[in-house]
């Protein structure tokens, strides 16, 4: 029992010796409110960010703002309690982070703002290739990728301008469609994919032409007596 007390005292002594002991008993600044206005903006719009904090210790508070990903421009010094930030052209979710410090400790808080990009979604048909030939009544697999910084709302498949099917946006950006041309499709046929971006609702598209070749399907086995 005595041995344990001695060990505890030794550890306590080490802490006091190697750490800033005073800091252990000091309090962090308290962030009362963080305001981001507006929370959804277009490129080049200005966002106003402000933090209200109190200091439980003596002395003044210091501030440090940052944005992630590191794009756009701060119009004010980032060590103020309030800053203005000009949104970049690239859409997406941006996270404001503020670090409020007193002489001893700091507190952080973050909040995000959405930048709505006006650019069209990028759509690319990966297969089939333009000019490929296919046989009537046999399934064609269409592989594509579609991307927008604000995400894709939906991807639609059109064959000769007729809507065939739709898929919701996928985080993988990969989309597969199946299409079986019936006897109404013959010769040069357009495959078009459109992608609708989230929020801005801008629409990107890619299209190729393939050839659907007619056949008389099947066989008659009975003549072989098999």
């Amino acid at each position, binding site marked *: 029992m005595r041995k344990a007390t001695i060990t505890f005292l030794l550890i306590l002594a080490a802490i006091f010796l190697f750490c800033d002991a005073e800091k252990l008993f000091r309090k962090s600044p308290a962030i009362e409110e963080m305001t981001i206005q507006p929370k959804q903006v277009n490129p080049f719009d200005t966002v106003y960010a402000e933090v209200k904090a109190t200091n439980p210790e003596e002395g003044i508070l210091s501030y440090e703002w940052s944005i992630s990903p590191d794009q756009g421009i701060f119009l004010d010094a980032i060590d103020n309690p309030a800053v203005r930030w000009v949104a970049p052209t690239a859409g997406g979710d941006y996270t404001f982070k503020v670090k409020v410090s007193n002489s001893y400790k700091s507190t952080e808080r973050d909040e995000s703002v959405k930048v709505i990009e006006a650019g069209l979604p990028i759509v690319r048909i990966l297969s089939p290739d333009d000019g490929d*030939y296919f046989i009537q009544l046999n399934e064609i697999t269409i592989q594509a990728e579609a991307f927008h910084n604000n995400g894709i709302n939906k991807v639609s498949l059109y064959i000769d301008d007729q809507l065939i099917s739709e898929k919701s946006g996928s985080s993988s950006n990969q989309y597969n469609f199946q299409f079986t041309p019936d006897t109404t499709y013959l*010769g040069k046929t357009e495959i078009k994919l459109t992608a609708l971006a989230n929020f801005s609702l801008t629409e990107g598209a890619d299209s190729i032409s393939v050839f659907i*070749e*007619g*056949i*008389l*399907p099947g066989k008659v086995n009975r003549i072989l007596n098999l």
Partner: protein
Amino acid sequence: MYKSIFNIIIVASLLSSCKDIPRDNLLDPQNPNSYQQPTVLLEAFVNTNNPYSYNLWALQALDSIAEIYDGRVVIAEYHRNTSQYTDPLADPLFELLYDKYVQNSASSVKGVPDIFINGTGNRVQGASSVSSVINRLNAVLADLVILENHYTLQPGEAKINASEISASCKIARLGNRSSENLLLKMILLQRINNQELKRVVRDLKKSTVISRLEAGEIKTINFDPVSFTEKPDEIIFSLTSSDELIVYQSIQVAL
């Protein structure tokens, strides 16, 4: 005396020079560097007894291909039944060949028109126009006709009487390598009309398997007499692998 010596010298020099004749003829099987231009076999499986145009487009495209690749391609037109349309020129023998080709192709989809190029190596199936078939065939043939080929086929004289035909063909192995497990096929064609039935296959015979053909070797294949009800107009001899899936060389002769 001088004259005799002179004659002996002339003869001796001729003999010695003859011995050294270089075998540099590219068509000479004894020349290890010999090769031949290929003749590509196009086997079209069709059905012409239906209301659709697909098969006619394919056959018209083959007419154009025959003109474009004059002498570099030979065309055989096998008729077959489909699930809905029977063709009076179909033959179970052709269906067996078609089954074999389809089973050994990348796609197992059956349907006519279906054109196999030098066996199962290349396939053009379906048609949406004459030009679409020409374009697809051209894309394949442009590469095939410029390849070096190491077989020569030389048909012998065919003997025809009122109901039978006897034919033979020589095979020479060019180049410096031997080959194994070959088959020579004799395809009898009939020109029924000058439109879509120009090269209709009426019969198909196969040799026994040629187990080995040495470099430079020449082999004669004699086919058993084949009886017919309507006289064929042409014969295609086609050298294939023993499983018939690869066609090495072909030649067509008029009867």
